[in-house]
């Protein structure tokens, strides 16, 4: 069991949602809950072994992308999966009385946020960190403007303006690092 599954499984769930929504009204919600419970148990089982190992993507780390899973990042992975599982549980309990309108999109956004937050913590390549930062940012912009009331839209608009300027300066910094060091 490698550590890529923490990132690949929520992404697969997000892309395959129109297939899963054909299993009835409750298909998407319960599949998301099962997947998050599986990830939580994977993280807890990784807590038992005490070695730190490195997962590669294509080639050796100075030239390619690698994911590092030592005890510091395992703490964050455990924290994120635990919080997301509790949040999904809370939503499933209150679903009969207070459901959102477009539920499938809500679950897609939640899982994308989880995948990108875990990817931020695990990755060790600076451009990869920028890409995951953008995924987390853009799903948070939409989640903050989900109900289409005027105050929610204004909050999402101001958050997006600040985040877009920040990402311009981030790309500038990465460009300067690459030009001077390589």
């Amino acid at each position, binding site marked *: 069991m490698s550590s890529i599954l923490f990132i*690949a499984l929520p992404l697969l769930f997000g*892309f395959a*949602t129109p297939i899963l929504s054909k299993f009835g009204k409750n298909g998407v919600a319960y599949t998301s809950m099962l997947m998050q419970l599986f990830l939580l148990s994977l993280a807890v089982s990784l807590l038992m072994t005490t070695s730190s190992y490195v997962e590669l993507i*294509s*080639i050796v780390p100075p030239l390619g992308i690698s994911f590092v899973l030592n005890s510091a990042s395992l703490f964050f992975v455990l924290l994120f999966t635990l919080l997301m599982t509790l949040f999904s549980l809370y939503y499933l309990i209150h679903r009969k009385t207070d459901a959102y309108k477009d539920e499938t*999109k809500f679950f897609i956004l939640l899982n994308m946020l989880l995948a*990108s937050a875990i990817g931020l913590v695990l990755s060790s390549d600076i451009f990869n960190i920028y890409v995951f930062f953008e995924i987390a940012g853009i799903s948070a912009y939409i989640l903050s403007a989900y109900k289409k009331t005027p105050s929610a839209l204004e909050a999402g608009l101001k958050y997006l303006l600040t985040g877009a300027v920040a990402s311009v300066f981030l790309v500038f910094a990465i460009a300067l690092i*690459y030009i001077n060091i390589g």
Partner: protein
Amino acid sequence: MSVKKISLKRELPTTTLSGFALSGLLVLTILNILLQNMPTKIQTAGDSLLKLNATEGVANTVTTVVVFFRGFDTLGEIAVLFIASLGIGLMLHSNTKCNIKVESNFMLQTASIILFPIILLFGTYVMIYGHLSPGGGFQGGVIIASGVLLLLISHKTFEVPHSVIVALETFAGVSYVLIGLIGLLILDVFLGNFLPHDISQMGLLLSGGIIPFIYIIVGIKVGSEMSMIVQNLIKRDHDV
């Protein structure tokens, strides 16, 4: 008797001047930093990746870097496009049937019907030959979406059906992650190259293992998502 308010500020645009000063200060600082250490030829990471390109057997090295050496960044970028089109569909979706208010000229209508298959063919060519000449999935997908835009603004009741776009998008996205997971099973590396890639086949259409397939999948996904974004931005209730 009404009281007239007299403004006590001088006739000086303060916000404009302060914006001028602040931005000028920032730019001068950055310019100073850049002009002081201008590096001459250093050995960057790209030169070593160019030498490693020979093991993959693909003619276009930029394609190898985008798809294979940095495949995770491409996956993340596809996720960003997916979430953005989801958000725009959430905000602006409406079921009207009318694109534009004014009927356009007959010349525009006839010419756009003739041009649309040519644009589609050109976009597919750029997409499929992405690993042999400059181009690739992103460029080809945007060309296809611009063809759809041309038809949308010249005809009054044209629309791409919603189920077709959702089916294409789902197929492309799921197969990208599944190819990566199959690479994890076979070669123990996520997005590993598990089809044969000899260097003797450089320049042919089927060279380079899984790289042309991934780029075609990326092109299908980008084309369908940009079409959905453009269609949502044009078809709105016209009381705004």
